[in-house]
């Protein structure tokens, strides 16, 4: 009766062959791709990851578009590639405009990468209207001059030479290396400076790091109150006249004249050359500080050289006591252009290789112990059948390993700590499929069926349960993958992957193997250690060997 129900499912040889073919294909792919090791995530081998979120400026929500984010990703990728660190990655996760950009760079580049990718790199050239010392003026007056007046305080004394050094010979040949640390106070407010701006300027304390974060988003067509990068001066600046997009090239060069520091050499395109010539020729005859042109990067003044004569050659220099690395990073950032959006650093994570190795070991150790415990338990409880689950888990394990190798090469799958956790959890889910099958099988034996027919009827019932239960597990991992960020995705991916592997193994290995095993004397005869002994299971009718052969002859027919 049972064998009538399930005539087709019993072709163990063919299923095992399918599995073997899958193994050979995967193995061959891995060899062809020369994928010899699993790609490990940064949390397992050390490195820095930065997650950037588009900053939604109030009233400018429409700016954050898919195209803008795509553009930002490609710009950031160019910047990161300019570092030359192998296996750096820039990806965007999420959907539509609700996306994050994730930058992962292995190794010890930590701080450099954070600065490099975070800046919007909006470069602007603005005429200086008012400038002065960084701190809040002790006696603010309506005039902007107070702050600008040199005060022989200790603080000032310290900062003045530094400013002199930073803002030296800039705008090309004509600009002479004149210190511009302090400037004579303008007698009245220059054109375009409103009292509100003066109030804002007076209140700004550039000695506080919090006011020197920059971050871009400044309006090109409006005046700007800004600090300089080192926190020694503050400025009121006119609207931008030359933009970063008008730069055709940038390179880091050693400044031969100005004391051997590094600087960035800029070349303008046609528009840029004209615009820069215009602004320099206009301000050259004005009184200080209005004869200075500030180079503003992401809302912070990098330098503000005084213009001695109009510059029409179409090039400029940015100096600012840069190190070689800083100047080449800045040149790269400028070369690849400004980001179309401002970004907030959602998360910055820096993991040393030591911690990475520790986490990897702990993950592998936990997995090993967990697997061992599961194997011991199933051997103790299911005896001979336990060997089947040991074999199935071993096959599942090697299939998972091969897949992570192949997927690492083909779709860039990286194994993270959360991913390892997903793998370990999946041991339980995979083993459960065997348990469902074994329990059904034993139930059928209890019903008094012969072992061979019990395998088939038990399988038909177990199959349904396994399919439905694994579907739920798959739905969970797919949804987790699409909705979650960061580590959760790695977890969802491995969980989904192993659920699929589980289905494959149960269908092409566990079931066929059990079918084959019950044909042997040890299992088929219900040996006490086989885990299928009818006596031990308390079957109602003791299974006689003869009856089981009779059943199977029907089956095989």
């Amino acid at each position, binding site marked *: 009766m049972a064998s009538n129900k399930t005539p087709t499912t019993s072709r163990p040889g063919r299923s095992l062959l399918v599995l073997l073919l899958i193994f050979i294909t995967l193995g061959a792919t891995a060899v062809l791709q020369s994928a010899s090791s699993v790609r490990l995530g940064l949390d397992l081998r050390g490195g820095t990851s930065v997650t950037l979120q588009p900053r939604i400026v109030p009233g400018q929500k429409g700016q954050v578009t898919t195209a803008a984010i795509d553009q930002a990703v490609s710009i950031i990728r160019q910047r990161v590639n300019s570092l030359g660190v192998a296996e750096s990655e820039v990806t965007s996760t999420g959907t539509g405009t609700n996306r994050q950009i994730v930058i992962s760079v292995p190794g010890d580049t930590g701080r450099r990468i954070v600065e490099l990718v975070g800046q919007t790199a909006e470069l602007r050239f603005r005429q200086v209207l008012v400038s002065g010392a960084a701190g809040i003026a002790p006696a603010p007056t309506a005039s902007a001059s107070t702050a600008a007046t040199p005060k022989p305080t200790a603080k000032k004394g310290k900062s003045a030479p530094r400013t002199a050094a930073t803002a030296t010979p800039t705008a090309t040949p004509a600009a002479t290396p004149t210190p511009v640390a302090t400037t004579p106070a303008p007698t009245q407010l220059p054109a375009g400076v409103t009292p509100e701006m003066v109030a804002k300027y007076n209140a700004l304390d550039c000695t506080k*790091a919090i006011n020197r974060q920059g971050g871009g988003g400044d309006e090109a067509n409006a005046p700007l109150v800004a600090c300089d990068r080192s926190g020694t001066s503050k400025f009121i600046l006119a609207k931008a006249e030359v933009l970063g997009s008008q730069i055709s090239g940038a390179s880091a060069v050693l400044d031969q004249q100005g004391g051997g520091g590094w600087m960035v050499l800029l070349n303008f395109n046609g528009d840029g050359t004209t615009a820069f010539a215009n602004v320099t020729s206009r301000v050259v005859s004005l009184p200080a500080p209005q004869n200075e042109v500030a180079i503003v990067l992401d809302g912070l003044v990098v330098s503000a050289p005084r213009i001695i004569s109009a510059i029409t050659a179409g090039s400029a220099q940015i100096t600012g006591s840069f190190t070689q690395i800083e100047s080449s990073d800045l040149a790269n950032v400028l070369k690849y252009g400004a980001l179309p959006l401002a970004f907030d650093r959602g998360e910055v994570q*820096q993991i040393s290789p030591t911690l990475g190795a520790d986490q990897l070991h702990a993950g592998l150790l936990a997995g090993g*112990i967990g697997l061992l415990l599961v194997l011991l338990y199933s051997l103790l409880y299911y005896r001979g059948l336990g060997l089947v689950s040991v074999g199935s888990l071993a096959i599942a394990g090697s299939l998972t390993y091969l897949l992570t190798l192949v997927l690492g090469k083909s779709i860039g799958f990286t194994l993270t700590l959360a991913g390892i956790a997903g793998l370990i959890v999946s041991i339980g889910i995979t083993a459960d499929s065997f348990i469902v099958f074994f329990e059904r099988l034993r139930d059928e034996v209890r019903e008094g069926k012969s072992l061979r027919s019990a395998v088939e009827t038990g399988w038909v019932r177990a199959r349904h349960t396994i399919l439905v239960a694994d579907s739920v597990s798959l739905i969970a991992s797919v949804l987790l993958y699409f909705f979650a960020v960061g580590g959760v995705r790695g977890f969802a991916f491995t969980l989904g992957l192993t659920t699929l592997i589980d289905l494959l193994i149960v269908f092409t290995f566990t079931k066929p193997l059990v079918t084959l095993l019950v044909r042997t004397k040890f299992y088929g005869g219900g040996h006490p250690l086989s885990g299928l002994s009818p006596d031990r299971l308390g079957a*109602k009718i003791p299974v006689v060997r003869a009856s089981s052969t009779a059943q199977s002859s029907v089956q095989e027919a």
Partner: protein
Amino acid sequence: MSSSGSLGSKLYRGEVSIDFIGKRRRWYAFSGLLILISAISLGVQGLHLGIEFKGGASFSVKKAGVSVAAAEKALASTGIKTEVIAQTVGSDKVRIQTGVITNLQSEAIQDALAKEFQVNRDTIDTQVVGPSWGADITHKALYGLFAFLFVVVLFLSLAFEPKMAISAIVAVIHDVLITVGIYALVGFDVTPATVIGFLTILGYSLYDTVVVFDKVRENTRGLTGGSRMTYSQAANHAVNQTLVRSINTSLIALLPVASILFVGAGLLGAGTLKDLSLALFVGLATGTYSSIFVATPLLASLHEREPAMQALARRVAAKGNATTKSSVEGAEVFAGVSAAAESHSAGATGPRNQPKRKTKKKKR
């Protein structure tokens, strides 16, 4: 293990039957109490959120002889005013958590720590999280949660029936509420890894429930045609039949999770592995409980309201007398009933055995 084998067979045939469904009010009350405690502790204490959710930074220095005092001294030297929690992990590691700080401040702290402990700055493990980041991942997790529940209700309604879908979802929500409650009560840190754990519990709890429901469905198929047992009795029998599987599955799922928990907590101290496995550990336990004590009784309650099932219950009641009823409701062990004495047809499925036992008892 042979004893469990025979226990399994007794459970299967209904010789040993634990009354999960008949005493459902007791389980409902118990779960209700747990949920109440969870709600109160959530309301009073709230969840202890990690820096990933509220923003902040964390620094870990690994070096022999590190101390909390030295770390606090280094932090104080930066002059940054923020809440600081420093703790040692194992013997050679100190972990410092701060409130929301800027990137510049984070660099200053790294420098100060590197100087204080005489280590290379790049060996300090750092995590800086912006204040809005947590809200963002929380929203995503919630969207994921609702999408998941919706899809699963649809799927289970198609694969099984809507009432099973509802019962399964109620059980899942029950699990998450209690797990979150335990987190609030004990004050464990909630990190993204914990959220992964919670979400996995959803999947796992459903998985467990699905296996039990599959058996319930098998046992209750064509039930209304006869008058042998009520829906509740058939469902209860299914729970008992899958009890061994539930226990085995839970144990096997808990073994690797426990090993992550102990290895993770022991070797690494705080971190992804510990947070994840702790949530899983708590959740797996409640998940197993709810599939037996909440989901199936609820399913039975829902079905017993149907007119067809009420009619069936009346027929069953009319057929049996007071003595028969006790065999279903009591948690007694009917070990005395000899299995071999019963006649048996080869194709019989589990539930048919139970009425046979009843008829036998009636004769007594």
